[in-house]
């Protein structure tokens, strides 16, 4: 404005004194507006946080008053200015019909940076701030009205670097407003338009646009380009952040996931993030990708999470933590979050192994050679190239973090392992993270978390054992599982940790069962069942039985009574446990016919239990179809064998 006035060639000629007078009045008034605006911003953003409980919006109301005054001043003197300076521009809007079409606004109305366009944008900005103010003070309808006034003012303008930020931010606000009224689709409309406007502006113009606050500062206080870019990109990041929430609320989870990813990408790119919060969000997102078997994406998120979490600084020493509360808090936060990320890595390794196992196993859970060859083949080059294409879309990283993220990624594969060597590499990474996570989640104080990590460790061993061809070594891996779970299972108070105890009991029973099978397979291979092996076998057999029995006992009432009806969550596990106990009893090896008979009778008793329970509770049948069928057969066949054995026993006596 000042430059236009001081240039004598444009506009009506004015005497020197007139020019100085006007300029000073103008700049005086203008300065007052700017001061008011600064005040309002300060009241709204800073002062308001100190407002008392019983008058929570005091500063917001004061800010509102100032904004209203600004609005009036703008209406009054800006019109005069514009008329005297440039008549032409004011003619234009009257010729233009008000058009609501968003896309249209690109080429219509005032040129965004014409004086009239600038005036409309300024008024629009005040309306915007008034709108936000009303929304913040819970006057939604009034807020909506101001925001819509802003929309109407903008409708007359084409998008320019001066106003594009306002175009986007007013829609962000309207999106929030309508979502709050349960009108998600309406919110979606505003936000998607904002998204389209950003994309189009960046394609067609792309220069760093003015920030909203710059409407009310003297020219010499204009923001540097870098700051403008930062604020503008932040506004758009918020658009994406709101869209992520909108799609979540609309239950379009895949789309929501995509927007979460873009939000994280942009936070990093424009350096607008809190390291720990960002890292935890990226780690959570990795878990989503894992459920979709998108391991490349999952790994990328986790690597980025680890690298960014490190940006949050060094963990204060224990001594430092004892000195000050702040250091203690920081130490705890950093350790906890890093341990959480380690746990996400564990799940990554575990799921990768387990998913590979599912692809490779035959119908009895053993490694299938044909499938192995098949998986090897599909993993050829073309597959990897396809991934590279996918990868470019999801990359995280600012220039300084990118290399470290890639470096971390290289430490673990993201393709399904096909053999023991590959599986072991993944297992070892998982195990490292197990140890890292346990450092924070210690048994004392973090019982549930600690045990969950142990269960994952055990599951890692189990998955690795699948790939191991040597039966003795496989058996040793299961032994490691027993060694880590058994002491805890005995130590834990079953009254408070019922669920965990049951899980451990069941898993221990299964692990012993597995070991028993392996021992027998080894003995069969060597064709020698010596007394030592038999003893070992029987020991594993009874250990398995013992833990199934402990699990079954946990279902009983405190008085030791078996419930007439099993609860849903224990129905299948309990019947499976009974079924396995039946099987285990009949597998015990004994040379004594009396003991054999005893074992068979116990076995029959358990099979009978399963059959009888399903007879009494027909709705249970569907839960254990196969096992029930087999139990029924055994109930009809076992008595014959028992009779034969009995006869045998009688005759030998």
């Amino acid at each position, binding site marked *: 404005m000042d430059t236009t006035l001081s240039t004598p060639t444009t506009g009506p000629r004015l005497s020197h004194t007139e020019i100085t007078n006007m300029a000073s009045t103008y700049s005086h008034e203008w300065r007052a507006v700017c001061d008011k605006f600064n005040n309002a911003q300060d009241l709204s*953003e800073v002062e308001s946080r*100190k407002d008392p409980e019983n008058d*929570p919006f005091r500063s917001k109301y004061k800010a509102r008053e100032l904004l209203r005054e600004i609005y009036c001043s703008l209406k009054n003197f800006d019109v005069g200015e514009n008329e005297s300076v440039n008549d032409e521009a004011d003619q234009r809007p009257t010729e233009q019909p008000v058009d609501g079409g968003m896309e249209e606004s690109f080429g219509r109305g005032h040129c965004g940076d014409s004086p009239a366009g600038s005036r409309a944008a300024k008024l629009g900005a005040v309306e915007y701030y008034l709108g936000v103010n009303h929304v*913040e003070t819970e006057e939604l309808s009034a807020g909506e009205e101001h925001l819509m006034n802003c929309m109407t003012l903008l409708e007359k303008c084409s998008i320019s670097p001066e106003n594009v930020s306002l175009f986007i931010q007013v829609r962000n606000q309207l999106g*929030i407003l309508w*979502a*709050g009224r*349960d009108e*998600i689709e309406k919110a979606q409309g505003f936000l998607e338009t904002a998204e389209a406007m950003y994309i189009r502006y960046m394609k067609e113009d792309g220069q760093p646009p003015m920030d909203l606050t710059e409407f009310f500062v003297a020219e010499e206080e204009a923001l540097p380009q870098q700051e403008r870019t930062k604020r503008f990109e932040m506004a758009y990041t*918020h658009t994406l*952040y*709101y869209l992520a*929430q909108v799609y*979540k*609320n609309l239950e379009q989870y895949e789309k*929501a996931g995509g927007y*979460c990813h873009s939000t994280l990408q942009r*936070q990093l790119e424009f350096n607008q993030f*809190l390291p720990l*919060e960002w890292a935890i*969000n990226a*780690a*959570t*997102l990795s878990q989503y990708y*894992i*459920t979709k078997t998108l391991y490349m994406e999952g790994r990328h998120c986790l690597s980025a999470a680890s690298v960014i979490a490190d940006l949050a600084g060094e963990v204060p020493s224990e001594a430092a933590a004892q000195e000050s*509360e702040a250091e203690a808090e920081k130490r705890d936060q950093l350790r906890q979050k890093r341990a*959480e*990320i380690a*746990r*996400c890595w*564990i*799940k990554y390794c*575990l*799921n990768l192994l387990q998913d590979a196992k599912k692809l490779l196993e035959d*119908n*009895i859970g*053993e490694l299938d050679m044909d499938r192995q060859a098949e998986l090897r083949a599909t993993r050829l080059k073309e597959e990897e190239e396809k991934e590279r294409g996918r990868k470019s879309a999801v990359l995280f990283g600012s220039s300084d973090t990118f290399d470290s993220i890639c470096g971390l990624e290289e430490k673990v594969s993201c393709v399904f392992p096909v053999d023991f060597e590959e599986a072991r590499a993944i297992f070892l990474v998982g195990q490292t993270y197990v140890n890292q996570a346990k450092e924070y989640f210690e048994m*004392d*104080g973090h*019982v549930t978390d600690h045990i969950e990590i142990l269960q994952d460790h055990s599951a890692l061993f189990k998955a690795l054992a699948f790939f191991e061809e040597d039966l003795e070594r496989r058996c040793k891996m299961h032994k490691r599982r027993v060694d880590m779970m058994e002491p805890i299972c005995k130590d834990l*108070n079953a009254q*408070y*940790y019922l*669920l965990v105890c*049951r899980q451990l009991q069941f898993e221990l029973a299964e692990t012993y069962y597995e070991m028993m*099978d392996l021992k*027998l397979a080894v003995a069969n291979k060597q064709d020698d069942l010596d007394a030592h092996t038999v003893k070992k*076998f029987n020991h594993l057999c009874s250990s398995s039985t013992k833990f199934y029995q402990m699990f079954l006992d946990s279902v009983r009432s405190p008085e030791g009574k078996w419930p007439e009806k099993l609860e849903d969550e224990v129905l*299948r*596990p309990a019947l499976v*446990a009974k079924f396995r106990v039946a099987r285990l009893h009949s*597998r015990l*090896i004994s040379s004594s016919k009396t003991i054999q008979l005893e074992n068979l009778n116990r076995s029959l008793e358990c099979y009978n239990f399963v059959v009888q329970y399903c007879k009494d509770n027909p709705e249970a049948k569907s839960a254990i*179809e196969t096992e029930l069928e*087999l139990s029924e057969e*055994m109930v009809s*066949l076992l008595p*014959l*064998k028992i009779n034969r054995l009995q006869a045998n026993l009688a005759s030998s006596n």
Partner: protein
Amino acid sequence: MFVVYVFRGVLIHSTLGCLTICSLSCTVSSIPCWQLKQVREENRKVVENYTSERTMRKKYYNMVEDMKGKIRVFCRIRPMSRTEAAQGGAIAVGRLDDYSVTVETSRGPREFQFDRVFSGESSQEDVFQDTNRLIQSAIDGFNVCIFAYGQTGSGKTFTMVGDRDQRSPGIMPRAFNAVFDILQENATKFDFKVSVYMLELYNDRLQDLFVSGAEAQSRRVEIKRNRKGLVFAQGAETKEASSAGELFAMFQQACANRHNAATKMNVESSRSHLIIGIMVESRNLTNGSVSFGKLSLVDLAGSERAAKTGAKDDQLKEANSINKSLSALGDVISALSSDLPHIPYRNSKLTQIMQDSLGGNAKTLMVVNVSPSDCNLDETLTSLIYATRVKTITNIAQRNLESKEIAQLKEVIMKLRSGQPVEDEEV
């Protein structure tokens, strides 16, 4: 599990409701007056039976739930306040019977089922009568948690603490008495030790209420659980109490400290929760066995600023312009799939604390307090469901795959059937 309550209730309602409607439609076709009268009489009986049966069913259902040890939820509707009455607000929340509440919503009436419903006429004694049994459980060695939830001004503190001059004491002071009454009764059989800690959770920070002033600021308190299942407040002072009076004096001291702390901090105090832990250690005098039980009493802060911070579930959470935080992103990502392998995102200390008391096999009672003229039940339900996400016992047992063992057994059966000899270890 909350959903199940509601759902079951509705289910019972609709089937029986159908019956009533059927018999009502019969009346239309019958002409003679005496017949009409008879049918009316029958209808009245049907409705009566329906009502009593509905009540009975809910009662039995709740009893079963109770035996299972899951969390129980009471709803307490406070009377209309003078200001509300003056503003001419209509009553939108009503108690149908002992177990159900209706709420007039913009989308028509909605019915909610609870384990018990108390109206404005119910006294503090009425409410406490049903909580008494839980105190016995705590002494028996269980983890018991009683807490109040609801909007600010809906009567939480009245329920938990009582009125200012303790003319109608709430659950906390009554529980102090009840604990020692029960101990007295069993004094010949058991040897008891009662200890207590009192904490305030404020701005996601735990504050020991037994220490005051600067010392309280510098002390770091954390709630943890040990392998025996005992919840303990690490870094907080634990005091022994030998009588209900002593306990109450400590409580009053804690309340005084709480007040001080809140005003000193000079920020919104609406996020302050009061947490009291009473530990009972009992030694059986005949056999020497020792058991630990714990009673947690929690007065949760209200959420009067909820609208401002966007606490409602389907509202968009705004970006925090001051500290770059996009705090809701974690929520969104966690919601992307119901079976994320690990969720590193933890809402707050409060959820952590509450999760401990809601999960596992703790015995928990929640009193939802509502004002008759408004309602926040949706929000309540969401947070409850979040806190009680049930995990399955074991993935392995849930899978219905043909395992090695089943293949083996099938082989055995085939052999047995065909009369082939079966080696002992193969059976």
